């Protein structure tokens, strides 16, 4: 409890633009505003076909509500600042990077290969150095999952260098 209060006091001493509450509120408001502008590009239904309200009205109202509530949480945070969050460790960024690697490999090379690569990468980055376990999570388990989904659910995975070999 004391630690949280300490972190809150420390947060109060920071300039407003580096505080978490400012950054989070700003991001929400910016995204909501961009989406709100997008709603003005939605097609308008002619009055004769329109039933009730226009399709853009409901999302508009929601986005305005989100912006107003975000301003309220920011106002409340100026009185009662959020606690400072710990810096994220390297393993977090590596896991995030693995998601990106997955996206690239699944799009360009192969879906199965992407799962395999991510599993080995994450497991290794999280501290697993034993080859057997890396093979277990990166090859044996994905193969089991692949075959299970393929046979039980009749799923057809997207084409790629490995899946093509399997299907041919």
């Amino acid at each position, binding site marked *: 409890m004391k630690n949280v209060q300490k972190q809150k006091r420390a947060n109060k001493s920071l300039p407003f633009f580096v505080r*978490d509450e400012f950054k989070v509120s700003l991001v*929400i408001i910016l995204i909501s505003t961009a*989406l709100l502008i*997008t*709603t003005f590009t*939605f*097609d308008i*239904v002619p009055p004769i*076909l329109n*039933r*009730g*309200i226009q*399709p853009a009205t*409901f*999302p508009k109202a*929601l*986005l305005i*509500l*989100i912006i107003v*509530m*975000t301003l*309220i*949480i920011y106002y*409340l945070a100026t009185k009662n600042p*959020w606690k400072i*969050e710990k810096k994220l*460790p390297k*393993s*977090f960024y590596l*896991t*995030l990077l693995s*998601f990106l690697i*997955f*996206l690239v490999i*699944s*799009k360009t090379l192969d*879906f199965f290969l992407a*799962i395999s690569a*991510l*599993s*080995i990468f*994450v*497991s290794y980055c*999280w*501290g*697993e150095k034993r080859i057997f*376990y890396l093979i*277990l*999570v*990166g090859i044996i*388990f*994905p193969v089991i*999952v*692949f075959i299970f*989904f393929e046979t*039980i*659910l009749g*799923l*057809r995975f*997207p084409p790629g260098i490995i899946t093509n070999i399997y299907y041919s």
Partner: protein
Amino acid sequence: MDNLLLMMAPLFSSKLLLVLFFGTLFGLILGVLPGLGPTTGGALILPFTMTLDPLSAIVLLTSIYCAGTYGGAITAVLINTPGTPAAAATCLDGYPLAQKGEAGRALGMATVSSTVGGIFSVIILVFFAPILAQLAYEFGQPEYFALAIFGLTMLASIGEGSPIKNLIAGAFGILISTVGKDFMTSIDRFTFGINELTEGIGFIPVVVGLFAMSEMLTQSTLINQVFNRIALKAIKLPSKEDYKKTWKTIIRSSGIGSFIGVLPAEGGTVASLIGYSEAKRFSKKPEEFGKGSIEGIAGAEAANNAATGGAMVPTLALGIPGSATTAVILTGLIIHGVRPGPDLFREQPDFLYGIFGAMLIANVLFFIFGFFGAKIFARITLVPNKILWPMIFAVSVCGTYSLNQSIIDVWIMLFFGMLGFFMRRYGFSVVPVIIGLILGELVEGTLRQSLVIFDGNWLMFFTRPIALTFFILSLIALAFPLIRAKKIKK
């Protein structure tokens, strides 16, 4: 009598018994593993249910729900980390009692009180769901709109996060539901020219992303964390003295849990916290709470399991999820072509009472599994995260892809994984997003249809007694956190 026989049906079907067996076992494993739990597990298993008939599919999901809620207690007692959020209150006394060398006693009480709470809530479900469904016949579009608003405002008072942050998350969930073709006019909204988005954003990618993937990112920040694990010799059934001490607490918490569960959007987490604090308030020895009180364990565990049956009441009778996990079950119902609501009670009583019976059996099964297998389930927590989470990733990706065979769904899942991580980091609960997403279409659809009926006159909402009652309840739900905060300040 007929209904009682229908409830017994799962007992006479080897297929349903097998489904129940595996569902309970799987639910327990999910509950034991911190970061997973019945909501994520239910979402991961949904694609597999496509190979089952509707009753077996929902029985599988409900048994996971019941057993998963109990499973969280094993981890709470032995490693001081709740396996599920609903078991958070169990840590407060379960772990200190285990530290005193009484882990078996703590888990014995958790098992018994969870079973009693669960069975109590199924009885509530059997009696109240049909009554609520009968009432729902009086509901028109405006009443359903007001009810959905009530469900959303209840988000303000759920346990995690600040009320306004919960409401923002809920509004965001509704916003996600507006992506795709407008269901009344077929006009594209927020599709940004991407064809796959015209069908809208699916429930499974969002749930798996917000729960499983964001948890994977959270676990990546905790890889150096060391758990102090307490060894379990064997579970002990509570002694006569323990029963004497706790029976009133168990019954009270079962009632509280069932009631909290019935409220839309609330669930086991809130129920267990209230059950725990009420147990403390009524206790003759409140000073023992937090230091290993057996009443504390009973209060929290009876309440969180009682919320399972309670949460199924609005889910089945009205199609409004009572908790995050029942939102998954609701999706399961919809995927299998079952429309929850009053008509379900009239047209498919065998289906409904089959579910009720299955929940009853699941509560008995997790008692047996828990009692005889807790030692084995406790060992599951020894599986290192560096092995477990890459495996969960493989299942999540394939499960998400399998529903529509769309790679875009996998990307959406990863996006929501990142979003969920940052939401949780900055105090936004992810549960309201799920509830908002589920209720979104109902809110918008009933609002627009009501306005057609009322010829655009908004004031007409307040001329209908049931709708007005729900609006008043919504105001109370919004005011409740403020009153609570003032009380705590005092």
